[in-house]
């Protein structure tokens, strides 16, 4: 429980005003350093921020940038959903059943240590250069991490609350929704956080190796053309999308699901 001497309105002001200002200042500082470096270098290999932003804008209006972002985002979302769903179910099962845990543990360690590239190549070789192979390969890279985190969550479940659910004979779904999942929420959040960043990096590799579109494909194309402006432009565009997801979707959602916490008596 937080203990704070500050009255509530001061707290709100700190969060809604000073927080973003500092973040924005820090971003502005980075842009300035970049701008100066580009001015000094005067090289095609280090375009300045103005040039990159102009490229992104042009590509968005006249080119394929938005479509490529869209297709990559779809792959990220699909892989994320598949990985979290499968990883959570297996992780929970392993956390609750010691026998299953012992049986699956060696495979988990193998999968954890298998390089992403190997999984991607094998998926393409065995299942062809198609969307399902691409998404499956990305998901398979994330699944073991999700399992490990969710397994810890399942081990930390409160046996006291489990007994409440049993004594009152809660239905399977009621218990899952009201007792189990809320306890797993922090583990799910941690797993999602690290997962989404891992997944989008691997999606680019998958696109580079065997997809005819997406940000990864564009990066590959522009690498062959030595178009650094396009490479930085695409990267920044997609990072912006991910930042928007974090601040506009993930964080508000997290605040909602944890609003029962830190309420002083």
């Amino acid at each position, binding site marked *: 429980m937080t203990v704070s001497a500050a009255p509530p309105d001061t707290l709100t002001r700190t969060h809604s005003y000073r927080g973003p200002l500092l973040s924005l200042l820090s971003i502005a500082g980075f842009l300035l350093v970049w701008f100066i470096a580009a001015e000094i270098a005067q090289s095609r290999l280090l375009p300045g921020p103005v040039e990159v932003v102009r490229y992104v804008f042009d590509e968005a209006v006249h080119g394929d940038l938005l479509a490529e972002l869209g297709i990559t985002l779809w792959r990220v979302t699909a892989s994320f959903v598949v990985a979290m769903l499968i990883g959570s179910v297996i992780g929970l099962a392993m956390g609750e059943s010691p026998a299953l845990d012992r049986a699956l543990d060696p495979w988990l360690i193998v999968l954890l240590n298998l390089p992403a590239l190997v999984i991607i190549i094998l998926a393409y070789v065995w299942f062809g250069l198609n969307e399902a192979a691409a998404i499956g390969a990305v998901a398979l890279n994330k699944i073991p991490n999700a399992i490990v985190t969710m397994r810890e969550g399942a081990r930390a479940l409160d046996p*006291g609350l489990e007994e409440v659910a*049993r004594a*009152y*004979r809660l239905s399977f779904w*009621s218990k899952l929704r*009201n007792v189990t999942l809320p306890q797993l929420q922090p583990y799910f959040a941690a797993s999602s956080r690290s997962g989404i960043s891992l997944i989008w990096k691997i999606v680019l590799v998958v696109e580079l190796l065997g997809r005819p579109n997406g940000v990864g494909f564009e990066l590959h194309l522009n690498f062959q053309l030595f178009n650094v402006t396009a490479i930085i432009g695409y990267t920044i565009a997609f990072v912006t999308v991910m930042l928007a997801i974090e601040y506009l979707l993930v964080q508000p959602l997290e605040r909602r699901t944890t609003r029962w916490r830190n309420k002083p008596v």
Partner: protein
Amino acid sequence: MNDARPAGETSQFEIRIEDKTHFGADGTRIPAIRDLVLEVRPQSMTVLMGPSGCGKTTLLRIVAGLDTRFVGKVYVPEAARIGIMFQEPRLLPWRTVRRNIEIVAENLSNAELDHLASAVDIADMLPRYPQELSLGLARRVALARAFAPRPDLLLLDEPFVSLDERTADRLRRLLLEVWSARSTTALLVTHNPREAILLADELVLLAPRPTHVVAVVPILIPQAKRDATVVEEIYADLLKCYPANFATG
């Protein structure tokens, strides 16, 4: 473990435990209950009283169906609804007080819930989260939750420990009020003799570990008439008859 009885007798509960042994982490056997037989009279408040660590909680957990590793039989009908109050409130911290009560009693109407909440004096707390409540308030919520499913059997495991005496006393009176308005079969466990005397229709005295029933003492004076002096009188009487059970209190 649960042998269903014919419908006409559902309000009768019978407990026969031949042996219950705990196993310590290093494999040592700790006998907890040996040859315990107990009949719980319908619509009565049966209070189990025994020294700390005698296996009272274990007994209650067996009756609740939370512990099935024992030798013997507990006759609680399969369909019997159970309301339980643990030593700790055990509320779901991520659900409001209202949701905490609703979750265990799906057919409880809003009006009934509000009525129950005002009966235990937590009507204002319904939209709050459990972490905002003091222990005394959280216990009241747990009490309301235990009554919410209209239980056939109400199990209370030392429900008023670690409260100051005034709060505990208020809660005991509150329990009696809510309980007598709903005439439920209740089984309460305590090590506090005065609490036992205040609440019990039938007072069951338990031996130290491995526990069994020493005596069943009916207390005939209605609970409503048991004020401090009456409780002390009964206590003095019982102390004479069962010095081993009442000496420490």
